[in-house]
């Protein structure tokens, strides 16, 4: 909290509120979650920036995808992401969600998370240190300030793209696909 920001608070209370009270959903996908407990406890205190973990997606507006994402975890990630109230921000954490990392040729993990859900920011590294999380959070503040963190709007706009990718990945579904892939498209790739 800065005293210079008071005018900004009076002008756009909503935006400043989203900025200074990011509540992260406590969801572990891979090994990256091991960096989160030191971040939120005494050593690097994340609560001084207003970042706290909450136990349920309904209350959260920050989603950190920590570590590799297997196909089975992706289903839970999508369900969690769609339950969060808008505006919501996602940050991919570690090198595995960016390009597969050391699981590049694995049969059961995905390589590019932004094909399936929209991502606002990336934190590279294997593992990124807790300081990198804070740099990521401050970058996210800048993006919210400029109005560039629009992942949730992109998800609504390009829902067909994301949904088709998800259904293509999951293969056999217990329900008919919402946007079925026709033969021509299948041949092309």
């Amino acid at each position: 909290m800065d005293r210079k920001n008071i005018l900004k608070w009076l002008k756009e209370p909503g935006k400043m509120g989203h900025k200074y009270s990011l509540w992260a959903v406590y969801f572990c996908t891979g090994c990256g979650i091991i960096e989160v407990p030191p971040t939120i406890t005494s050593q690097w205190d994340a609560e001084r920036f207003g970042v706290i973990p909450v136990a349920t997606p309904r209350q959260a507006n920050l989603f950190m995808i920590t570590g590799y994402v297997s196909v089975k975890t992706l289903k839970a990630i999508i369900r969690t992401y769609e339950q969060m109230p808008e505006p919501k921000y996602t940050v991919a954490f570690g090198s595995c969600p960016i390009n597969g990392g050391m699981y590049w040729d694995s049969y059961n993990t995905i390589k590019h998370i932004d094909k399936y859900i929209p991502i606002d920011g990336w934190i590279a590294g294997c593992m990124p240190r807790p300081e990198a999380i804070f740099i990521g959070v401050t970058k996210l503040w800048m993006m919210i300030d400029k109005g560039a963190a629009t992942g949730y709007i992109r998800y609504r706009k390009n829902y067909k793209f994301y949904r088709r990718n998800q259904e293509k990945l999951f293969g056999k579904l217990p329900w008919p696909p919402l946007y079925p892939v026709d033969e021509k498209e299948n041949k092309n790739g």
Partner: protein
Amino acid sequence: MVIKIIEFIFSPFLAFIIGVLFLGLFRKIVARIHQRYGPPIIQPLLDVIKLFHQKGFSHGALFDLGLILSLAGSIVVILFIPFGGICPLKSSGGLLVILYTMLFLPLGIALSGGEGANPNISIGISRKLILSLGYEVPFLLILLSTMSFYRTISIVDIVNSQKNFHWTLFSPLFLSGIAYFMILPAMLGMRPFDIVSAPQEISSGPAVEYGGKYLGLFHIQHSFSIFIMIALFVDLFLGGGENIFYFFLKMLTIFFIMVLIHSVFPRLRLEQALRYLWKWPTIFAFLGVIISKVVR
């Protein structure tokens, strides 16, 4: 007349400010005990501002109405509580009205949460109602002892008869005061008794399906309930206050001790909490009733 209207608007607003400030202090003190820097004191206010700008999900008509019932109940209780010379509704039977209206606080949340249809909510609500059953028994005995000690059911008269440091806590009725102090963490939902909103066990209990502005209203209700529980203790046992400042100082002292207790003790199980609440506070409160009969 104009002063009366200003009091009606001013007192819930002041209660909200004090409750939110207490929530912020709570997070700051706990952070300092953990040797962290901690969030800014106005952080809960920022959270509430954020929550009101978020998109919320409603789960039906009762989901909204139960929350409003709980909020309205807490505002009515605040209008009956005298703090620092201000009491918008000076009725002759204030304590009984407070006693009955305080039931709306857990009941409204239970009604509202039940509409959410989440298994965690039903577990949390059953815990909340059982816990309130636990602390209601000593609480009723404590109120009975104070009412029969001062021979009145008006809370304003009780505050007035404690003037010039004739506090109830230093009268023969001190056992009831100790009993109230022992059940206060359970009434506030703090650590030895935070069974209801256990984030690690049941994903923060009744609040699990609340998001956006509904969670904001939930937080406001929580800050109101913190104000009510501590203000009642200050009014009944610490002699109220000559002005708002002294009243606030007394509330702050009690809250600080509660936070220290919160940050040291682990969480009890439900049946352990119930066994504790029906044993020591009830015995002390019962002794208080007997003393109030013998002395007068």
